[in-house]
């Protein structure tokens, strides 16, 4: 049990704990914060896996962008203090069962699938330069095309969101 596995277990405990709380907490704002912690935990996992760039991106985009966006939307739509409506009893049980079934099923698969080598033979330390060059290279593993498509997507999304959210005030029901 060396230090890195301990760190790994800690990080995964953080991720899963924050996740469960994000999903079950009654106050919406608190749920958002738990989501924040869970995402930070995931970034830590990336760091643990030595893919610093992805971790950085994770922190910048997810934690910085999306969670903040969600929190803004919480403020926009309702006061955060109010308790959220509890879900129906039957639905909770049923979805919990579904989730447990899912985990058990996939767990069973993973355990029985011997293809995963216990640990990687070769070291894996991608540096950012490599990522950059491959991102824009047009050769075999080049990702230039998805890169361009994603940029188009972002533009479309921006325009879309503005159009949807920009309805003139007079139509707002009071």
């Amino acid at each position, binding site marked *: 049990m060396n230090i890195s596995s301990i760190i790994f277990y800690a990080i995964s405990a953080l991720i899963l704990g924050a996740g469960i709380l994000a999903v079950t907490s009654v106050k919406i704002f608190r749920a958002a914060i738990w989501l924040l912690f869970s995402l930070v935990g995931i970034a830590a996992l990336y760091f643990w896996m030595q893919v610093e760039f992805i971790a950085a991106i994770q922190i910048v985009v997810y934690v910085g962008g999306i969670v903040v966006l969600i929190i803004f939307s919480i403020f926009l739509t309702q006061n955060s203090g109010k308790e959220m409506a509890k879900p129906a009893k039957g*639905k909770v049980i*049923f*979805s919990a069962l*579904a989730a447990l*079934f*899912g985990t058990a*099923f996939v767990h069973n*698969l993973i355990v029985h699938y011997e293809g995963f080598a216990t640990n990687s033979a070769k070291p894996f330390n991608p540096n950012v330069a490599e990522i950059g060059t491959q991102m824009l290279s047009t050769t075999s593993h080049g990702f230039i095309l998805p890169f361009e498509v994603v940029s188009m997507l972002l533009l479309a999304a921006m325009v879309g969101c503005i159009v949807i959210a920009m309805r003139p005030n007079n139509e707002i029901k009071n």
Partner: protein
Amino acid sequence: MSNYLYILWIPLLPLATFVILGLFGRKYLSGIAGILGTASLLTSTILSFVAAKQYFFVDGKVNGIFQKIVALKYTWLEFSPNVSIDLGIIVDPISVMMLVVVTSVSLMVHVFSLGYMKGEERFATYYAFLSLFTFSMLGLILSANIFQVYMFWELVGVSSFLLISYYFNKPSAVAASKKAFIVTRFADLGFLIGILILGFYGGTLDIGLLIERFTSIHSTQFLSITSASFLGASMLTWGLTLVFIGGAGKSAMFPLHIWLPDAMEGPTPVSALIHAATMVVAGVYLVARLFPVFSMDETALTIVTYVGASSALFAAVIACTQTDIKRVLAYSTMSQIGYMMFALGISKNGGENGLGYMASMFHLFTHAFFKSLLFLGAGSVIHMVHSNEMKDMGGLRKLMPVTHVAFLIACLAIAGIPPFAGFFSKEEILTAAFHENKIVYGIALFTAALTSFYMFRLYFNIFWSKEATVAAHAHDAHTSHDDHSDHGEGPWVMKLPLIILAACAVGVGFVPFSQLVTSDGAALETHVDVVFSIAPVVLSVLAILLAASFYKNKNEKSDKVASAFGGFYTAAYKKFYVDEVYIFITKKIIFPFIGQPIAWADRNIVDGFMLLLAKTTAKISESIKGLQSGKVQNYALYFFGGVAVLSILFIYIWK
């Protein structure tokens, strides 16, 4: 053997008249329709007399037997190589005799109708249907193929349907025609199945071949048909009995006779032609045509005998009680045909013991003349009195001398009084019955007495009993200025046929019938055995005197005797309730217990099943609708359920 193809013209002329009058009759030819019809029939009659003379006297016998000539054979509808309906003409003693009978009686009726039906609105259609009937009857007589007999059999049925419902605005006439057609159609079903049996086992539909194959004991067809059996009886018996049922239906034999009295709804000349002389004897003719085959089978002949005898007796008893003169004559026809049937039934085939066959044909020959005379006489009486009931008549002998004399001759003939035709033919039947079957002879004798009783009851009621009532006088005054008819009997066209037929009723008895028409074509020696014929003649005379005492002048004696019989009399008057049985069966059993349930079942069960399908689909879609609840999370759950199931399926079950 000279060529007999010209016989083809005899049926074709009435057919031509039917087509012409049928298509153009109503608008253009209504004036001369009668003349046209009678003229064409006159030529047919002449042709048939010429053919008869040529067949019987010019060509005569070949080594003692009259040849059976098939003048024409044309494949009309081919079922399989050897089984096919081919239209053909067969010329042999009975068919030539029938040609003469049918054409002459039909001519008399045509002439009589010129007067009787004058002033009718559908005069042309009447003559069209009359010629259609004559065509189909002649066709039936001449047909050489058993299916061709069936075809003309149906055509005769339809033309009688059309003629009975001539006065179509009278609901009773329509009902009567419907009844006649359905009852005969029911019998024709038996005939059809009989044909199918005989055709299948005989391997052919041609009558000549059938007779040839079924009469030789060791022919393969005969062995096959007698070996196959169904419910105990051999197929030959089944085939022949079914064919006889077809004949019995048309000839109004006992169980299937209910349509004949109602058929009197049609105009009287029609009854004279159809329900006296021609159509009703078709059954007898059919049995005679297939007689060699019938003679091979004992049971079939016994059935024929006893149905004939029972019909004769049954009809004679009812005839004594009827008040409508046409109904009396109808029942008397049924009785006389019963005579012919049982004469055929007791006869054997060929040689000396073929006497019954010859006697039956002879009686058919004579009966046609005096029965049509009786009907035409009744027609002229009705024409004058405008009612069928006896009570409206009486004392008409002074007003209608010609009809009176003719009617008297006919009554004497049917009663079997010596010089008249009826005596000779009935004598032959009684001798044949005496030799073959004593019971039948007893019935025949008793029926003969009954016949003369009810005939003279009719005669005295019409011409004697009370003085001519006022109605007759008024009628008399009204018609006096009518062209030159002096006695209110109607024009000469109505009297001429009466006179001719009266002459025939007398003369026809002396025709040397036994030389000409016998079961095997050879001549048959018959002599009038005086000793034997005393019994029937004496009985008839006694019956006549009894009738005279009852009805000569109005008295209650007849009523007293009637009340003496009590229930039996009323039962006989009500035709022994046979009609009611039939109505009960159709109205109470067939319609409510078979028709209604089937119609209901079709509406509710079979149709209901289809509607049920529609309803169940509606219900299923109603229940499935719940799934589309609009709640996004439910959809997500169903989605996850689907994924889970599929993944299990594909990973674990379907490797």
